[in-house]
């Protein structure tokens, strides 16, 4: 067929309505590059495309664009799951850091409270011991430092329970130093009786527990020594209290 004979079939071809043999003829013309048919088919397809524009406008969902790009391996630079997860991770990290800090704070506070409780229990036990010595009928009392600016106080001596020292005007021991209590025997020997520290107001309470050798103890003394204590006094005693029982 000639191009002229196909003239009325180009639009039919463009719309898919051409029938044989015209459809095959047009295809053959196009395959061999027939310029007339190519121009006519362009025109017919142009008309067909215009018909396509008569469809009512509609909008696809926004995710369709992402689907299409993802299908060719292209990601979208938008705020999506990755950014959301990164934000959530950062938030979780901040929360973990915050709660870890709070946990440390609570742990430290609990440790301080436990230390305070332990110290109070020790103080109560010491006070109970002190009261026991004070209330015992066989306890004797010796004062020291009277009429002196410092230090001064009393020594309560019980044969079975031990010795209670209550002092005041004691200076704060320097760092690394502490007070050491001594029993001075009648033979002139100093026997270690324990270490103690004064309070910030200069007061101190110390207890030397256990049965006392009342017959051989002439006095008690207090010296300033290193915190670990020493076997024999290395400084001049700050307190010397002759025991009343020893003089009897």
């Amino acid at each position: 067929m000639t191009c002229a004979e196909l003239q009325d079939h180009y639009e039919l071809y463009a719309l898919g309505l051409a029938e044989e043999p015209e459809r095959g003829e047009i295809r053959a013309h196009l395959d061999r590059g027939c310029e007339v048919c190519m121009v006519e088919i362009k025109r017919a397809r142009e008309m067909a495309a215009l018909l396509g524009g008569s469809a009512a406008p509609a909008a696809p969902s926004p995710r369709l664009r992402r689907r299409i790009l993802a299908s060719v391996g292209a990601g979208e630079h938008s705020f999506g799951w990755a950014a959301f997860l990164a934000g959530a991770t950062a938030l979780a990290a901040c929360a973990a850091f915050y709660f870890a800090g709070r946990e440390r704070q609570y742990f430290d506070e609990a440790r301080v409270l436990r230390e305070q409780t332990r110290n109070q229990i020790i103080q109560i036990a010491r006070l109970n011991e002190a009261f026991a010595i004070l209330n015992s009928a066989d306890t004797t009392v010796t004062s020291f430092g009277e009429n002196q600016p410092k230090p001064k106080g009393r020594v309560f001596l019980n044969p079975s329970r031990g010795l209670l020292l209550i002092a005041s005007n004691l200076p704060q021991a320097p760092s690394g130093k502490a007070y050491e209590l001594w029993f001075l025997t009648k033979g002139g020997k100093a026997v270690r009786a324990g270490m103690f520290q004064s309070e910030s107001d200069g007061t101190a309470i110390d207890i030397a527990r256990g049965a006392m050798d009342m017959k051989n103890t002439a006095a008690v003394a207090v010296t300033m020594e290193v915190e670990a204590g020493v076997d024999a006094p290395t400084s001049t005693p700050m307190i010397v209290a002759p025991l009343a029982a020893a003089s009897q």
Partner: protein
Amino acid sequence: MLLLPILLAIRAAEGDADLVARLQRREPQALGDLYDRYGRLAYSLILRVVRDTGIAEDLVQETFLRVWNRAQAFDAQKGAIGPWLLAVARNRAIDYLRSAGGRERNAVEFEETDHPALYIDMEQGILASDKARRVKRAVEKLSAQQRQVIELAYFEGLSQTEMAERMGQPLGTVKTWVRTALKNLRDELGAAAVSA
């Protein structure tokens, strides 16, 4: 309103040559730009055919992937990828209808892949608003039967025999309506070409 999608694409078509070149360089973002220009138009066309939004989106995706995979067939200097894309979109949709309806494929629906070069330079005419208005007027001038056969052919891909069965009319009558409708449209386009 009838031709609004095409009118909206007038400005978009101006950069098609560069877009085609980028598609041929396999730049994925070029596919995104192509979608931004013709995505709504293709979706509207396909939805008009299949009348199901989910299926329409699947077919739009197929359409753009087909164009992506066959972009090398175009002359990057001349561009004109939009009309070809719309032809592919229409054929994807009609192919779906035929598969769903158990109908045989119409051989001509695959022509666009055999001769993509025939779409070159088409947008200069297809997107000219004056010509679009003329075609719109020509469609409006068609009789109800003529307009129906054109729509059945374009949006449903029916052959003339199938249209005759659908409409309960003799095949000869349907062929007359089709030829008359196409002649009127052609005349309108011809007049537009002269006036352009």
